[in-house]
């Protein structure tokens, strides 16, 4: 009897719930890989959710007719089609459509010339449409270069509010020179950040890219440092002011013992990139064997008064620079600013504020 009842029950359950349905068509629409001839690329392309940026050797291609190939989410399609020549003297907008046809995403694909800028005024800012936050860009011979990145895209997912001014990294009109300066503030990530052991987000800004997907699972690897550089840097100069948010708290949100006041950090690193390790990240940027020189602010304590102070940091060389490799863009430079020195380990003080303006890399 019980067996019959069980069979009737299972039969009913199956009728009601049905079986696992055939897999639906993909809804995602990502560019996974962009391929260009190897000789043309100076560095692997960096791909975010809505942009692809690659440094290319302008001498080795006709920028008005470049033919990139794209690898997409399975079943997705792209317009203009992969493998058709495009004029990349300006960024090209590609539209990726998901396999099921219901979702579209626009990518801004930029091929940047091998002329890295060496002064940064933080005058040009754009709002990232994905997360509604500010990011600065550089103009090099009227070319729009998206070479700065921040952790804002990681913050956007768990952010309690999504106004540009609510993000850790933004612009300010309180500038040392010109109209704007970069403004970094250590923020609380709210209840969601606390449960993943990331109660704070330091304001950060660096040359490189941010892999937002890794923000929660491998935050140190999410910050990808370095852009190609072909000159020998001697000094990093600029203007800054820093307001410490007070006592540093740890991953659990409790004050660290012994008590510490929050510090800021400003540094630049020159490293020799390789095919295996084209970039450094938060876990190795100061310690990797490929690091050739470091210039770092000796003490990140609060600046006195309410005005900007100058910094002038010398690059300390650990090994000699090979001139031939330097001119062939084998070296990369990273400049990193953070409103909490140990922000990468989620230690800092909410309310620490770092203002940065008028930054220059003095080269030989």
């Amino acid at each position, binding site marked *: *009897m*019980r067996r019959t*009842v*069980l069979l*009737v*029950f299972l039969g*009913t*359950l199956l009728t*009601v*719930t*049905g*079986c*696992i*349905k*055939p*897999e*639906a068509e*993909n*809804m*995602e*629409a*990502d560019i996974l890989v962009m391929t260009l001839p190897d000789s043309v690329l100076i560095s692997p392309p960096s791909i975010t*959710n809505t942009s692809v940026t690659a440094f290319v050797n302008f001498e080795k291609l006709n920028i008005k007719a470049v033919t990139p190939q794209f690898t997409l989410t399975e079943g997705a399609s792209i317009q203009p089609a992969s493998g058709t020549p495009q004029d990349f003297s300006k960024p090209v907008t590609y539209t990726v459509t*998901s396999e099921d046809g219901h*979702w*579209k*995403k626009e990518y801004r694909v930029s091929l940047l010339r091998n002329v890295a800028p060496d002064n940064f005024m933080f005058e040009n800012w754009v709002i990232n449409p*994905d*997360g509604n936050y500010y990011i600065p860009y550089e103009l090099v011979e009227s070319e729009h270069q998206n070479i700065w990145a921040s952790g804002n*895209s*990681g913050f*956007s*997912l*768990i952010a*309690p509010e999504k106004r540009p001014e609510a993000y850790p990294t933004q612009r300010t009109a309180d500038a040392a020179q010109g109209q704007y300066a970069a403004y970094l503030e250590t923020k609380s990530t*709210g*209840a*969601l950040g*606390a*449960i*993943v052991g990331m109660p704070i987000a330091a304001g950060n800004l660096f040359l490189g890219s941010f892999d*937002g*997907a*890794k*923000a*929660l*699972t*491998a935050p140190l690897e999410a910050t990808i440092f370095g852009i190609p550089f072909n000159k020998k840097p001697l000094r990093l100069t600029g203007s800054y002011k820093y307001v410490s948010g007070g006592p540093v708290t740890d991953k659990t949100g409790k004050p660290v013992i012994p008590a510490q006041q929050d510090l800021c950090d400003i540094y630049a690193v020159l490293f020799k990139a390789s095919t295996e390790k084209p970039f450094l990240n938060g876990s190795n940027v100061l310690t990797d064997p490929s690091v050739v020189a470091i210039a770092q602010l000796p003490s990140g304590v609060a600046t006195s008064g309410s005005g900007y102070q100058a910094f002038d940091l010398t690059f300390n060389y650990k090994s000699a620079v090979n001139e031939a490799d330097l001119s062939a863009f084998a070296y990369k430079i990273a400049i990193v600013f953070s409103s909490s020195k140990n922000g990468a380990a989620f230690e800092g003080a909410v309310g620490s504020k770092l203002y940065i303006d008028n930054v220059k890399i003095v080269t030989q």
Partner: protein
Amino acid sequence: MKRLHLLILFLAFALETTAQTGKKVSLNVRAGVSIGAATPVGIPVSVRKIESYNPGFQPTVEAGLGYRFSAKFGLATGLRFEQKGMTTDARVKAYYTTFNEAGSNGNESVTGYFTGRVKTKIKNSYLTLPLHLTYHNNSSFTFKAGGFVSLLLDNRFSGDAREGYIRNQTPVGEREDIDAASYDFSDNVRRVNAGIEVGTDYRLSSNFFISANLNYALTPLMEPGFRSIDFGLHNIYLNLGIGYRFH
């Protein structure tokens, strides 16, 4: 729901008839366990594989009352304390959901399309009023069909999502890898659960019997307006038990 109302009316009418004719009344107590699930009607396409299912221990105790208003028919009601729950682990693709956490500024949440594994733990306690029409023939079986109304006493609906990633808001939103993120929808479970029930009792002796009941909730498990799971969940449970009838 209309049908349920009709059924209750019919049973109420029958009850009155019985009272007038003064037929036999019986009392019984019963204990049992439930096996089942809160499940969508038709597995949604976002669920790719059920990795595991554990019915858990879901006890029931019931005090029942039976009336025989004719040789073959009667009706039964009672008061039942029961637990309905289970734990499942499923592999999902583009499963629309919300992770939430109570914070100082109220409930903070992340909504989007999750691909990965989702574990769901449900344990709801109900005080239930069943109402059955019973059919008696000369065999040891009694057949029952009717409905039930349950009041939620205590509940848990929680779980976690892991080994995957979420796309923020839409399937083309910013991608964020997720090691493990928890959710808790306990506050969104409806206070009242009602549905239909069929079952049978089998007499072992003049006092003891075993029983099997299958019940299906017509009302959804979650409150109206609940959007964190994009399909309706309904309780469907089989209850197996042993009872004692007083004469």
